[in-house]
Structures are given as C-alpha cells and as structure tokens.
C-alpha cells in the first residue's frame, strides 16, 4: 500500500505511462523525497536534480574535512578513525595494561592499571585488537599519521600508484575548466561537466578491440587504417597510454610460491582463517586472503550535498545545507507545495439482497449500470460495508471502498480535482475499475495548531461550507472515470469553482453527505475499487491518479516567464479579478496491494 508521486524530470508535465507498462515505474518517489523548483514551477527528484558536494565530514569523529584535503586523504578520515577488519564497526583507542602487574590477577591487580603507551586500536563489537596485525602506537592521537610513518604500504605498489596518479593528474588538470573563470561562473557551473569526460573515456573503452574479435577488427581496419586512426582521435581528449613501471608478468613466479604458503596457512587455520570475500573487496589493492592479513581501513568520508534544479535556464538551489548544523539554508521540498495523499479505511461492500445476478455472470456494462443505480439510491438505502485490513489481498468480483485523504500544506484553502489519466489506446486492460464519487472538493488552509483548537470549539471554521456540498454532488456524476471500461468521462464544468474558494461562508455543511470528511487541513473523500470477476492472474491493484489543485497565487502582478508557465501548467486566464488563481497538476501512483 503506497502512494508515490511522479517526477517528469525535464520534460513538460505529462501523464506518465500507466502502471501496466513495466517501464513506467522509474520516476516515482514518495513525497518526502521530492523537491520543488519555484522558478520552473515543477517537481524535481533525486534522479534529475544536479548534485554538488557542499562539504565533507567524517561520520565517526564528525570532523569537517576541507575539500582541499579530501583528495590527498583518499576520501577517508585522516585522523584516528578506523573500521574493524572483522566486523566493520569503528575502532577505539586503548592504552595498554601496565606490564608490571601482569602476573597478579584478582583484587591485588587493581592498583591503577590504566597507563600510557603503547596504544592499540580495539573493536568494541568483536574485541579485535590491532596487536593482532602488529600495530601499536606511541600516542593516542593522529593514528593515521603515525601509521603513514610506519608505512605498511609495499613500496612497489606505492610507487606504481604515484606514477599512475601523476599520469592521470596531467589529464585532469588539462580537461578542467580554467580556474580564472571559476569565480564568475561558479553559480552557473554545469556540475555534469566532467561527467562528459568520463563518458568519453567509457566510450573509448568500448571502442577498444575485443580479444576474440581481433580478426574481425583487423579486417575492418585494413580498409583504411591511417585515416581511421585519425578519425577516431578527432574530438577526443588526448590521454597517452600509461606505461606501468613494473609489469605483473614478471612477478608470476613468486605468485606461485605465495600460493603454496597460502595453502599451508589455510591448512593450519581452517575455514575460519580465510577472510570473507566482502572484507577483501574493501581493500582496494592486492592483499592476502587470510583473515589475519586484513587490515583496518580508514573510515570513508560522508558528504553534505547541495542540490540544484536541473533545468539549464534555471539552476536554482533546491537544497543548500549548513555545514555547521543539521539545518538547511535553502530547502525547497515538494511537501511544502503539494498536498500529501494518503489512502486508508478499506471496506468491502457486502452483497445486498436486491442483486439477483451472481457476480460471475455480470459483464462490465452490468456492473457499471449497477454502480450508477447504487449511487442514485445512496442515502435512502445505505450500502452495507465491512471493515477490512489494508494489507489483505483483494478478491475477484468484490467491490472495495477506501478513503483518500489529502492534506493541504498551504496557508490558503485549495480546490482539488481528482481524475484518472487517459489510458493510451494500446494499454493493457486492468483487472479492476476505479471510481471516484466526488472528484471535486476543497481543503481548508493550513493553520497553526492553536488556531485549529479554537476553531474546533466554535465549530465554524469551514470556509464555503454550504457551497461545497451541493457543488461536489453536482460534479460527482460527470467526474466519474473508470479505467476498466476505458470510458474516460473526464469532462468537468469549471463554473463557479473559484467563487467557492473566495467565498467565506461560515455555515457548516453536512460534510459526511457525499463521503467528504473535513478536519483541519485534511479532507477525506471516498474511492471505490471494483475488482472484475474474471481474473486469471495475480495482478497488482495499481493505478495512477491525476491531481490538480487550484490555489491563490500570491505573486500577483509579477508575471514570471509567462511563456514557460503556459507550457508547464494550464493556467486559468479566465479570471482577471482582483485575485488570481493558479492550477498545478501532478500525478501520483496508488498501489493498493494485489488480487488474490
């Protein structure tokens, strides 16, 4: 059971592919993970927003590492933070026991055993100690530095790494934008810029000769080898071939001898002596495969991220963290703009006595007819329903009713229109139909908590109360849309919708009349699901819901990029009154579970 929101990324807003297509689930997120760009008036998500690293910090000592040091520190904490080689929890520093009391155990040994050097790293999770790998330290601080001095790194590997780094360094400095222009262009810098270099390199790797296809590529190259070579290089950044200082081929023989040692070790230690593969992956270079050879790793740094709108003409900040605290300097999140959609109160409709036909023999048209009848007779002849748990599977041929709750995050009341998006002609048919009896309703404004309490006492906080009941009842017939039958009657009359919003009527309506419940800034309306009787497979009950909300625009008289706005939303230009109203449309995917 979930309600997720669609992000259209950089495309203009459109109804997403229906859930019956396997490819259509990629850009749905829960509301709390979405951002909102006010400039573009669009939803943004983690997949499309442009990300920059604002600051680096160590998750263990919480030290803010200046970004200048990060590369030299190899993205890991350069102070004293290490992770345990056996259980990966962080290691702590322990002074060693005083050697003078080593033979006395018991109450006599209690005299001030805590003492100074040498210090060791110990794990509180599994009692691993760095003495097991022969590490001990003179000081309890700056362990990484002390370790660097001890230098456990093989010289050969280090020099190879350095020369490879030098080789690539020249390339990186060459391809980066010149630093002189960075001050002016920082704000509009394209963060994906050096991704293009990466893709170039990747592409280049793809163009390399594949071992087994040598003959083929030789044949194709033979046609015009010189020209082809020239052509290939055109437009690519030049990266010379790296010549390794020491070839792996030369060490082949020694490797064999090492293996003999390894087998001997393995016989002694048994299976537990062999390091788990996961542990060996974590150390990037060649290490022994015995668990006692696995060394502690410095803890990788974490980042705080700045997120920007991905639109090339916008690039406004969506998220800007404060490096010192957990607060955000800029936080443009969708939950402050879009209503929160929740679904709950599932009920199964019990068969009433007047239905003579058994549900198995009913066609879709019959069910449709029946449903319309039922709605007409509502009120006089209440439908019997039975409460059910949200996570039980649906049964074929049954009708379920839900409540859908929308929470208004704005300080003004909003008008909601719920529709089911048009299905593409070739879309696979769903095994259920969705009925929204009251697709039009309003939600009251968000207020401070104390304001609600006062309102609750005086019972007069509902705005436009009397108007809503009647109008919503009027909308209900027209607005009903179904996916199962493919008859999309999404026509709706826009008449006097805005007057509802602006009218300030204090009369309380009978809210429960059309299944509309209002409390504070939350409005709940009904939603019916009819599972078709002829179901063969275990299908998911999942559908898209188009939600349009009309809100009072506060930036009156300052029309922002008008052309863009017309594109991104259907603006209601019919009212040139003293107050302006705007629409925003978004799509949610509702997953209610599956049919048994």
């Amino acid at each position, binding site marked *: 059971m979930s309600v997720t929101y669609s992000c259209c990324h950089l495309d203009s807003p459109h109804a997403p592919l229906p859930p019956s297509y396997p490819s259509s689930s990629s850009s749905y997120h829960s509301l709390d993970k979405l951002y909102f760009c006010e400039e573009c008036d669009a939803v943004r998500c983690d997949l499309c927003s442009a990300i920059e690293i604002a600051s680096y910090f160590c998750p263990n000592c919480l030290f803010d590492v200046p970004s200048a040091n990060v590369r030299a520190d190899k993205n890991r904490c350069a102070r004293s933070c290490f992770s345990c080689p056996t259980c990966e929890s962080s290691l702590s520093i322990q002074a060693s026991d005083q050697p003078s009391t080593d033979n006395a155990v018991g109450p006599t*040994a*209690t005299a001030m055993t805590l003492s100074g050097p040498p210090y060791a790293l*110990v794990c509180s*999770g599994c009692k691993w100690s760095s003495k*097991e790998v022969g590490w001990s330290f003179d000081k309890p601080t700056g362990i990484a530095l002390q370790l660097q001095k001890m230098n456990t790194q093989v010289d050969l590997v280090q020099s190879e790494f350095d020369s490879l780094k030098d080789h690539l360094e020249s390339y990186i400095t060459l391809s980066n934008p010149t630093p002189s222009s960075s001050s002016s262009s920082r704000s509009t810098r394209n963060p994906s810029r050096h991704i293009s270099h990466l893709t170039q390199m990747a592409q280049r790797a793809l163009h390399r000769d594949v071992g087994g296809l040598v003959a083929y590529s030789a044949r194709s190259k033979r046609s015009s080898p010189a020209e082809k070579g020239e052509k290939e290089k055109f437009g690519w950044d030049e990266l010379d071939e790296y010549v390794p200082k020491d070839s792996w081929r030369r060490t082949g023989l020694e490797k064999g001898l090492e293996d003999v040692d390894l087998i001997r070790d393995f016989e002694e230690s048994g299976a537990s002596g062999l390091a788990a593969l996961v542990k060996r992956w974590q150390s990037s270079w060649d290490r022994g495969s015995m668990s006692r050879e696995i060394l502690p790793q410095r803890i990788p740094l974490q980042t705080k991220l700045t997120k920007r709108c991905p639109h090339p003409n916008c690039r406004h900040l969506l998220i800007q963290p404060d490096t010192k605290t957990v607060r955000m300097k800029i936080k443009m999140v969708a939950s402050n703009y879009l209503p929160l959609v929740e679904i709950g109160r599932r009920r199964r409709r019990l068969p009433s006595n007047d239905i003579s036909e058994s549900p198995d023999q009913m066609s879709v048209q019959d069910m449709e007819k029946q449903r319309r009848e039922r709605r007409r007779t509502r009120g006089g002849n209440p439908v019997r329903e039975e409460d059910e748990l949200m996570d039980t599977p649906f049964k074929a041929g049954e009708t379920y009713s839900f409540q859908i709750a929308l929470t208004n995050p704005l300080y003004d009341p909003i008008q909601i229109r719920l529709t089911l998006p048009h299905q593409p002609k070739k879309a696979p048919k769903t095994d259920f139909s969705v009925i929204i009896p009251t697709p039009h309703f309003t939600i009251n404004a968000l207020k401070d908590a104390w304001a609600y309490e006062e309102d609750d006492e005086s019972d007069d906080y509902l705005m436009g109360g009397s108007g809503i009941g009647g109008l919503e009842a009027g909308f209900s017939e027209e607005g009903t849309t179904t996916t199962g039958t493919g008859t999309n009657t999404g026509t709706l009359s826009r008449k006097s919708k805005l007057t509802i919003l602006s009218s300030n009527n204090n009369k309380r309506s009978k809210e429960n009349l059309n299944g509309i419940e209002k409390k504070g800034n939350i409005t709940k309306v009904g939603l019916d699901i009819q599972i078709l009787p002829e179901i063969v497979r275990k299908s998911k009950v999942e559908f898209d819901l188009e939600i349009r909300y009309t809100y009072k625009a506060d930036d009156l008289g300052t029309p922002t990029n008008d052309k863009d706005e017309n594109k991104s939303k259907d603006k209601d230009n019919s009212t040139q009154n003293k107050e302006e109203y705007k629409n925003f449309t978004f799509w949610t995917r509702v997953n209610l579970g599956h049919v048994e």
Partner: protein
Amino acid sequence: MSRTQVPPSKITAHSTSIICQDTDLRGDITISEGVIVHPKSTILSLNNAPIIIGKNCIIEEGSIIVNRNQEMMRIGDNNRFMVGCRIEANSIGNWNTFQPRSVVSSNIIISDNCTISAGTTLIPSPTIQEGAIETIPSYTVVYGSNSEKRKWDGTGELSEKNLREKHIEYLREIIPKYNRLRPTT
C-alpha cells in the same frame, strides 16, 4: 514451564551479597559473597537441580539464568550478566561477559574470559552429536549477526578486570540507597 513444577525455593545468599527485592528467584539457588542481583532479574532452577553463583558476579535487570538440567549449574566468579541476557549453560567459568540480550543455550560449558556479544546466540555447534556438551574455550568472543566465534588476544584484559571490580564496588554503595533488598544470611 508452569509455576507448579517448580519446587519450593531454597535460596542461600551470602551476607555480603546484594539482592534486590524485585527479583524472581526460584529453586535451589546459592549466591556467594559479593554478588549483586539487580531488580527485575530472574534466576530459575527447574528440576530442583541447584544453581551456584560464584563470587562478585553482577546480574543485571532483565537477565534470566535457567538451569534445565538434572545436574548442578555452577557459575564461577566475577561474571557479568548484562541487561536482558538469557543463560542456560551447564557451567560457566570466571570473568565472562554476557552482553545485553545474548543467549546461551544448554549443552554448553563456558570456560573463562569469554565474551558473548550483544544480541548473539550461542548454541552447540551443529556438527557435534545431538545432546553432546560443547565446551567453549577461554577467550572466545561470539559476535555479529551470524554469531561467529573468534579468539580474543587478551588486549586490555587487566583494565577490564579493574573496571569490573570498581564497578561492583560502586554498585554496593549505590544500589541499597535506591532499592529495597532481600534479607541475606
């Protein structure tokens, strides 16, 4: 295990031990000198087989020590049973630590200086014969989500023992101030 199966309790506690009132002690239990039993802990001997708890053990709240066997369950000195552990071992040596919510099943003998880490479960190895008793060697550490075993090299052993002694000393001072105690002999 219904309450009726448990025979009348025979609890012998040394006068220097501290046993809080709000504890559940049932069966034949002998508590040696200096032991501290925190409130809300349970020591239970089914089958009327005795449980003997050695000197200076700490039994914290929520821990459960059960003897399911016909034989005596002997617990050595200076063991620490931390919050919410459940111990059914046949016998226990000295200086062991049973960390919060660790579980030790029966058919296990624990030697000295072992650590059963938080949230782990120690059961006899599946490769040994059913019903046979497995002895866990000294300095064994049971850790992690798979309850793996490894050997502790003894780093910091002395300071740990020092800490435990100071800890129990302080508890002797502070527990009687705030908790009602059972009378000891």
